């Protein structure tokens, strides 16, 4: 299941340059490159002639030349040269995709180009905000994208999958979780009041006593998960919205489906302390990467079973509330997109 009328993260900004980059998104092969003036371009990575990926070709000025028979396409995806003939067949063109560079990521619109409004790009400003330190990361995962959405909305696995890394028994024993939802959004909020800070927080936050700690997960379709985590000295009013004398981080996740069973996982860990210290950024990023790799092992093992037994029955437990609400939103949005597409087809006939 894919949702098409959305902006997806296609690449980190530094990945796209004068060397064509192929990336499959929502099952569609796309080639990315930059024109000589630095503007990013995205079009179908399949020559209109004999289907070779255009990413195997090379840039000549602002045109991309196919490696097979030398057809050249300009930045609008239109073929402008066919070697050995003067006439260019009108069908010699490839589909282009709306593309925007923002927050150190390059975003591509996968739906109806007429609806591609850059204002709809989900906010990830922490990745390039001067008040935060961050370094965007990428992982390729051999699992369905929704397994990652499930995982990021579920805090209870921390005590098991991440027992030796970011897990902490206080998370399970002393926490109250609240799930709230609106039309297209799920919020999972957990407060841990008046408990010792985990060692990593003590190190960077210099806490002397107990803390009030929060984990607030924001899910925005199709697969954006922004986690607000942090701590302040207990009793200073963080639960009421006054955050003073503490630390906070944003764990930022944008998952882009590649195929039904693989995905691109873009993420970053932004921190509001020691923001200009590259070592600190590297350290918090590395810590999360270690934990994420523990998750990836889980996703890929789940996917192996789901490939063997598609759509098996499953049991729900109380901790699944956030996951189930998100899945319900995605199912509804998918049904809406399918209905709109069917209506368009009927209107066209």
């Amino acid at each position: 299941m894919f949702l098409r009328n959305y902006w997806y993260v296609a690449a980190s900004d530094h990945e796209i340059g004068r060397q064509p980059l192929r990336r499959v998104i929502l099952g569609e092969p796309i080639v990315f490159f930059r024109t000589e003036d630095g503007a990013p371009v995205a079009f179908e990575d399949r020559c209109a002639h004999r289907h070779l990926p255009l990413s195997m070709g090379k840039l000549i000025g602002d045109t991309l030349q196919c490696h097979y028979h030398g057809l050249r396409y300009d930045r609008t995806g239109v073929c402008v040269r066919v070697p050995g003939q003067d006439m260019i067949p009108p069908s010699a063109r490839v589909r282009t995709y709306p593309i925007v560079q923002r927050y150190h990521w390059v975003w591509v619109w996968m739906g109806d180009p007429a609806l591609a409004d850059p204002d709809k790009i989900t906010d990830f400003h922490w990745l390039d905000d001067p008040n935060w330190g961050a370094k965007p990361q990428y992982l390729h995962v051999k699992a369905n994208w929704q397994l990652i959405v499930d995982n990021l909305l579920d805090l209870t696995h921390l005590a098991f999958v991440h027992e030796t890394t970011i897990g902490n028994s206080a998370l399970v024993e002393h926490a109250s979780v609240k799930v709230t939802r609106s039309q297209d959004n799920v919020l999972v909020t957990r407060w841990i009041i008046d408990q010792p800070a985990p060692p990593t927080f003590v190190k960077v936050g210099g806490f002397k006593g107990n803390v009030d700690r929060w984990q607030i997960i924001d899910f925005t379709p199709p697969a954006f998960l922004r986690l607000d985590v942090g701590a302040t000295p207990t009793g200073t009013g963080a639960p009421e919205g006054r955050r003073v004398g503490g630390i906070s981080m944003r764990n930022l996740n944008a998952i882009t489906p590649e195929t039904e069973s693989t995905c691109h996982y873009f993420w970053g860990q932004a921190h509001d302390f020691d923001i200009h210290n590259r070592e600190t950024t590297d350290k918090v990023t590395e810590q999360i990467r270690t934990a994420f790799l523990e998750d990836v092992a889980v996703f890929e093992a789940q996917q192996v079973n789901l490939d063997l037994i598609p759509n098996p029955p499953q049991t729900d437990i109380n901790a699944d509330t956030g996951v189930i609400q998100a899945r319900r939103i995605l199912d509804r949005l998918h049904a809406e997109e399918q209905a709109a597409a069917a209506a368009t087809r009927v209107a066209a006939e």
Partner: protein
Amino acid sequence: MTKWHRVASSADLHEGEAFPVDLAGTPIALYRVDGKIHAIDDVCTHEYAVLSQGFVQDGTIECPLHAAQFDIATGECLSGPATQDLRTYEVRLEGDDIYVCAREE
């Protein structure tokens, strides 16, 4: 043994929110709807799900897992997958103390 148990204080309850309590071994939830206090079972009659972790809207509680809906005042099951109603409990307010009457087994 008295059937009435003090389970909460009036200040614990807020409109639009469930307040789960233990009533002599039975998990129930208290709600305040338009000022009136109600007490109903806190386990969905479909599968084991804690209803107070679900969603309160317009005098109903929606199960957090499979979206069955119940009327908070009457316990009536309004939509599936559940088919059975929830049990309701008598509530008495004495000052700020909320008392709920346990059912005879």
